[in-house]
């Protein structure tokens, strides 16, 4: 256990080195944030949407940009993929730890380090914007606590999904094509392009059935009260079930991969 903890810390410290990347990320996030807010304003001035009102939507947009690094699905860890492709994974297998847990920790730490460098400036700036364009306060202190809980559980869901996608590299050695398809589906159903409440009914239905919207869509709507306390609690249950399920699937795939698959390289 202590090994995993030290590794988590090491990875966070390593991740915090990438400050220029964070600044670049911040600029992008501000740009998209303003762009989305303006586009939605144009839409909302002609037709109202009953499932999510404009201020909630703006809050959604800013939270999405602030915690983008945490909920970003399209993430490949080149170190892990290289380890698989070149066979350096051999070393990891010579160590007394569980490879799945080890990589899970690594991905999680990377996400946390990235978000730690980015979220605060966006929150602060968005909070002080003039009113219809600003980030609102959470609906209540309870919804804020539930927001944090769902956000953290959401990151567990995401990393469990990412683990499955990375492990595919064991079987194909070029996971590019498959992961591209998976990423696209996941992003669409997670509400990364368009918040789920604005999607056509049928896609909403599929989206609510699958785990992807539990990553970002859920916590951001819990924050503004668009999803009420009771529904939030039910969704926390969903998150927990999905985390366990996805980890079991991921572990099974990895175990299968290590039994069947050759380790590359002389």
């Amino acid at each position: 256990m202590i090994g995993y903890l030290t590794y988590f810390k090491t990875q966070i410290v390593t991740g915090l080195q990438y400050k220029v990347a964070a600044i670049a990320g911040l600029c992008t996030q501000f740009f998209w944030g303003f762009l989305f807010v303006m586009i939605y304003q144009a839409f909302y001035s002609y037709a109202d949407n009953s499932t999510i009102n404009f201020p909630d939507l703006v809050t959604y947009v800013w939270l999405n940009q602030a915690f983008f690094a945490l909920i970003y699905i399209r993430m490949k860890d080149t170190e892990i993929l290289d380890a698989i492709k070149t066979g350096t994974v051999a070393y990891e297998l010579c160590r007394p730890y569980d490879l799945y847990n080890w990589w899970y920790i690594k991905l999680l730490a990377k996400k946390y380090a990235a978000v730690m460098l980015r979220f605060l400036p966006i929150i602060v700036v968005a909070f002080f914007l003039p009113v219809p364009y600003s980030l609102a306060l959470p609906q209540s202190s309870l919804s804020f606590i539930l927001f944090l809980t769902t956000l953290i559980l959401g990151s567990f869901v995401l990393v469990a999904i990412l683990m499955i996608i990375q492990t595919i590299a064991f079987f194909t050695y070029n996971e590019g094509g498959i992961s591209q398809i998976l990423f696209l589906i996941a992003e669409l159903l997670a509400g990364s392009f368009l918040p789920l409440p604005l999607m056509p009914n049928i896609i909403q239905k599929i989206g609510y059935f699958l785990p992807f919207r539990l990553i970002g869509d859920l916590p951001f709507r819990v924050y503004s009260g668009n999803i009420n306390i009771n529904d939030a609690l039910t969704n926390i249950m969903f998150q927990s079930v999905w985390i366990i399920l996805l980890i079991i699937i991921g572990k099974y795939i990895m175990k299968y991969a290590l039994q069947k698959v050759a380790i590359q390289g002389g």
Partner: protein
Amino acid sequence: MSFIAVDNLTKTFRIQRRNSGLKNAIKTFFKRDCVEVKAVDHVSFEIEEGEIVAYIGPNGAGKSTTIKMLTGILRPDEGVCLIDGLNPFDDRKKYVSKIGVVFGQKSQLWWDIPVEDSFDLLRDIYKIKESDYLKIKEELVKMLNLNDILKTPVRQLSLGQRMRCEIAASLLHSPKILFLDEPTIGLDAVSKVEVRKFIKEINKQKKVTVILTSHDMSDIEALTNRVIVIGHGKKLYDGSLNSIKKKFTSHKKLEIIYKKIKKVPKIKDVDLIEKSDHRILLDVDMKNNTISNVVSIYSDACEIEDINVIDEGMDNVIIELYKEYQL
């Protein structure tokens, strides 16, 4: 029961192949051709505690595959290996605490962080007691001369420095067995000697069993007398280095530097390769001659200034050995 007992170990890989060209590429959508290649074919051997054994063979002979099975990375298709009472693949987590591994072509240190942080991380991974850790670390730092590079991030180390750190990293948890897969690959002569010296010392002091593979015959000559030769996945030879050396070194080259020569003496089974003003190069067939015999005949014929016996060395022995087994 031996410390390491390997019995009929076999590993088969399926390798996809297709002929070149677009037509054949399209064909693979429907049907894939696979060939089965036996990377390791019923290999058996035993190794006692505290031995140093060199595992040699040409590229693709199955060396690394064997090492991967011995270290618990690959599951054998057939056969068993039992090491210190454990089955490497099935008892992986327990087993790997007892072994140290260095793959010369790969790095086990974390690229972005200083060497010392890597060591600290390994301490926590292996759950090494702080007091033991400090003691062993100090020992290794001293023996491998790491003091100046401990604080440097791994990405900034030279290959020789990195390899010394890799070896130290593999020994922090006091393993009973050390696997070295081409530990001197790419190193310069000085670093090679240092690494060899250290391996010998650690084997002597701590009774660490060492299994190494290398293409560098001087590594093997310097470190061990027992070699296991493998080719096409099969074990070809297991025994002392000297006896295969004797078997396959039938000729030696003898260089004689002289002041004046009356007449070049004729000796049976000794061929003249080169002759210049003050130098003669001979090819001596060792079956019917000894070096001292040839030298004494020449010393009668001329005033010898210097002699030089050129041992063809292990490289030739291995080439001969491969020839004999038609590898």
